[in-house]
């Protein structure tokens, strides 16, 4: 039957039509694999303050403090109370293999007000640590 033959022919060539699609999909796959960086997700959503600052981290932070917009506080992905940070930092510093390079990263939401950050900085200071960095994001759009 004519209709049947036509139908069969189209079916057979289906895969050939997909080759350009696969080409494109493969290209996208390679792009995202090479250009993107896979990062660990933060325990809370944080929109960091925007800044023109360009400095990047050369090493991974030894301790990461995350402060969300709702003032929820996480230290190394564990929910913390502010007063417990000092003990945790002291213990982390004591067990660090390279104390000279020990540094603390604070990821705080840009909308957080500074009086929420002060106790955290105070705890870090009480723990005797001086290398602290705040995370920012490059300003987009208006530069």
């Amino acid at each position, binding site marked *: 039957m004519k209709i049947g033959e036509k139908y069969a022919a189209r079916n057979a060539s289906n895969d050939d039509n997909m080759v350009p699609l696969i080409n494109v999909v*493969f290209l996208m796959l390679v792009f995202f694999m090479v250009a*993107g960086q896979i990062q660990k997700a933060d325990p809370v959503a944080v929109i960091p303050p925007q*800044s023109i*600052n360009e400095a*990047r981290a050369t090493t991974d932070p030894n301790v990461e403090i995350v402060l969300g917009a709702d003032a929820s506080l996480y230290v190394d992905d564990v929910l913390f109370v502010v007063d417990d940070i000092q003990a945790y930092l002291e213990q982390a510093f004591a067990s660090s293999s390279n104390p000279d390079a020990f540094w603390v990263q604070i990821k705080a939401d*840009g909308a957080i007000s500074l009086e929420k950050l002060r106790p955290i*900085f105070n705890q870090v200071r009480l723990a005797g640590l*001086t290398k602290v960095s705040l995370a*920012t994001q490059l300003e987009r759009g208006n530069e």
Partner: protein
Amino acid sequence: MPLNLPQPKRKNAISLTPLIDVVFILLLFFMLTSTFVPWRLVDTPLSVSSDQQDPAQEKPDNLVLTLKQNDDQVWVDGQALRFSDQAAFQTLITDHNEGVFVIKAEDGVTLQTLMHLADRLKLNGAKTVSIANAFAMPESK
């Protein structure tokens, strides 16, 4: 005389559909997990001594800027200065070129406002901007 051989059958390669399925899943994974905007870092070195001196009093050339609200204004020597006032910032910075610009903040000021001010100062040529004082506990004042 043409041979009446049967047409060589085109070898049917493995179907591409499962391959595409897998590739699409990989693509989705990489699209969703990858980030293109790496975090930047602002160093805020802390002084260890608890009786920290006010850096504003150490050197006379240091300039204290105080943020009171998130209204894009900063107070310098009792005068309000708008962030958008480029000319005023420039004169301020050329007047205190060798000093440290110490930013202080009152309660309620957001981190973003603080960063905006630090950016403004840097963009207008300030060499040393200190934001660590904005994070100092108020009782040390």
